[in-house]
């Protein structure tokens, strides 16, 4: 079964460093320097304080499935979901290299990078 091709993320000057790190195999999570809290999705201003004091911290790459759904009507089918990372934030992803029928809420998953159209590597997850 061929997997769904992930489209290239739209270019955005605010996100370039994030995507460059992905291409080097690192998922960098934004953390507010004022509060020490992680947030998602990446942005240059903290959504907790609106200050520019934001740092990027490499994710451990582990977490569990918060929820998911398999698009049964698309060809090829694909599994979309939200993963709750061990760092405490929840991000959207695709589950890859797995039997979609084996997915479950609460399942432990780990980070893998998948090449999107045009070559950009994007974070996806697979059962740990």
């Amino acid at each position: 079964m061929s997997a769904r091709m992930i489209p290239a993320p739209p270019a955005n000057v605010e996100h370039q460093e994030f995507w460059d790190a992905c291409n080097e195999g690192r998922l960098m999570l934004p953390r507010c320097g004022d509060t020490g809290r992680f947030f998602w999705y990446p942005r240059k201003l903290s959504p907790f304080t609106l200050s520019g004091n934001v740092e990027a911290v490499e994710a451990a790459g582990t977490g569990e499935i918060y929820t998911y759904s398999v698009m049964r009507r698309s060809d090829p089918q694909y599994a979309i979901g939200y993963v709750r990372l061990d760092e405490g934030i929840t991000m959207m992803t695709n589950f890859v290299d797995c039997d979609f029928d084996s997915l479950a809420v609460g399942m432990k998953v780990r980070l893998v990078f998948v090449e999107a159209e045009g070559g950009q590597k994007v974070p996806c997850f697979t059962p740990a």
Partner: protein
Amino acid sequence: MHTRGKAFIAGISEHPNRKAVDKSVAQLHAESARGALDDAGLSIDDVDAYYCAGDAPGLGPLSMIEYMGLKNVRHMDATDVGGSSYVLHVGHAAQAIAAGKCRVALITLAGRPRSEGMATGTAPRNYGDASPDVPFEFIYGPTVVNMYAMAARRHMHEFGTTSEQLAWIKVAASHHAQHNEHAMLRNVVTVDDVVNSPMISDPLHRLDCCVISDGGGAFVVVAPEVADSLTRDCVKVLGCGEAPKNLMSGQVDLTYTGARWSGPQAFEEAGVSPGDIDYASIYDSFTITVLETLEDLGFCEKGKGGAFVSDGNLISGTGKLPFNTDGGGLCSNHPMNRGGLTKVLEAVRQLRDEAHPAVQVRDCQLALAHGTGGSLGTRMGSSTTILGRADA
């Protein structure tokens, strides 16, 4: 400043078309507007405020005010929070009227996604490349249906909600739609029919989804002195609330909606509680939309929505909370994929005793209309309005 009793809905119109290949979007807006003004006994010259949302063509109010020949507009609002916009507009119109900014506010909605062959539910949904969240979600293929499916999955996980319980919501809508000659789906369905319909994005089946339809609608909100001058039954605006709900900086929670905040605002302003409501129009893009909204509005405890909707509890005449007696988005129509406006219309019909006799709620004194826009739990607008009879 509260707006309780300071504005009335004087006229409504629902476009009968469910497929409108031979009409433009602007034309559908204007035909709906004409219907609502005729119903109220008002003319375009009486209109001094115009509200629309993202379905309006061109520059929204600027384009439509010209098309419809509105000459006396001095107040405009194009707040676009998806399908919840039009319920929100009730509140904004009431506030503007209470503040003396206008006396006759016209609100319209129209579109033709069916004629234009939009893959409304299953095509990945891009809010625009400049939207800051899009690069981190759109690439993974979020569609309308799988976003709502993920909410349903999580609700099932946390509260034990079942597909059969969700199916009861469609069953109730179908019981009502059989009496609506314009409804797209008039066959009464069973729980088995719903759970055995094709899986679209698990756990949501085809019959958990609303219809895709063309059409539109309009209503007119007026000041008390205008309502007094009209012969038509007017419906009093008692309370309104609105709230956004989003990704919460990564603390995603798909088990509740912005109704958790919009509902209490509306109930407090109206001075009533969920137990007082005789009829509820609840936005029903999917069965799960209704279930979470009913919980968040306080019609039942959080997590108990599955039990609440079961066994026909939403069916007029037999259930405790008759809902969407026109068949709603699940069976009748969902013009331009935005069901908020039609929610207001059926609430007004109920309060005027003008719903179909088979679904009319006896002695209906208080009605609630709730709109849901965007995507459930992640980037959504919630809006609630509570309406009563003119003497409420």
